């Protein structure tokens, strides 16, 4: 597994998204930075509650789309005009209207595939060490809204953090150690 090196941290579960939102605000307000909210579905307002900024992925999409346009035009110009111009039905080599569909398609192709890959990658890069999914069932992919504070957080202190999470009203608060074992 190439996933985050540290699996140490504290987690606590909530049953409804509203509670998780409040918990996220409080955790953020408490000065934790290496914390995360794990939810079965994206909860509206969670980014603000956690103090996260807008995703930067869309800017890259624009770059990729532009690259797609350039690549398509370059390919077709090279092939149809420069490398071996031929006479198709009396049209000139540079029959530009015919180049539009492929340009559009390649733009979408580059932008879409690139965006998806970058978003998945960014999801890994822009995050704190996660509770190891193979070892711990957080319930966050099922019916639980989980607050997770990683041990890498400068403010992390197993006892205090545990207490803090419990103070948020979370259930099943656990301390996860390096081996991924959970302790209540």
């Amino acid at each position, binding site marked *: *597994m*190439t*996933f985050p090196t540290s699996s140490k941290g504290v987690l606590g579960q909530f049953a409804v998204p509203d509670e998780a939102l409040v918990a996220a605000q409080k955790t953020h307000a408490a000065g934790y930075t290496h914390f995360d909210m794990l939810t079965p579905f994206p909860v509206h307002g969670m980014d603000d509650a956690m103090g996260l900024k807008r995703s930067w992925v869309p800017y890259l999409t624009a770059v990729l789309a532009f690259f797609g346009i350039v690549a398509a035009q370059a390919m077709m110009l090279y092939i149809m005009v420069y490398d*071996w111009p031929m006479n198709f039905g009396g049209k000139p080599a540079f029959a530009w209207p015919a180049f539009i569909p492929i340009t559009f398609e390649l733009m979408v192709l580059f932008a879409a595939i690139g965006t998806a*890959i970058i978003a998945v*990658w960014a999801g*890994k890069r822009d995050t704190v060490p996660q509770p190891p999914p193979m070892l711990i069932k957080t319930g966050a992919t099922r019916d639980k809204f989980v607050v997770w504070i990683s041990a890498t957080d400068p403010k992390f202190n197993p006892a205090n953090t545990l207490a803090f999470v419990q103070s948020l009203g979370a259930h099943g608060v656990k301390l996860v150690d390096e081996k991924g074992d959970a302790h209540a």
Partner: protein
Amino acid sequence: MKLPNKPMQLAVVLGALAGFGVLAFLMINPKQGYAPKQPIFFQHKRMAGDPNWVTDANGKEVNLGGYQIPCRYCHTMPYEGRHSTLPSTDICMNCHSVVGQDKEWVLVLKGYWERGEPIPWVKVHDLPDFVYYDHSAHLNAVDDKGQPKLDCVNCHLDVKNDSVVQVRTKFNMGWCVECHRKPEMAASTDCVTCHR
């Protein structure tokens, strides 16, 4: 970017390699270096090659090279016909009814001659059946000064000094087109020039 797990990494790497492999294979021409086994170990360099006289152990002057027989002594028709033609056996026998009577391969040649069988040469410069190449149209082409544009060696390279005939050039369509495109050749790159 880091891929999440080993199998995925492996799959991507293998996929990419396979893709590039296929691509490279399509670009490399399998014709180059083609040198099939011939029924007679015929050496162009002994016939058309440059002479190489040496003194052997017995102090005799022997020619280890060739006799500079001109191409068209054997390949008679390149200027007149589509094919340069392989020599009919009687052309071989012009000399070999006298010369080299004891040589292993000359005996094989004579065997074909006695039996009246054609020598089953294996085609080396074998164009696909849908390519129409005309030796005469190439060799008779002249430039503005009236000089011939091409000679045998332009395409067949130094075949006269080969011991085994083989395809020395890329010998694919790209190779033909490369030359046809040269402005000084003033040749056509229309499809029907070769395909019809």
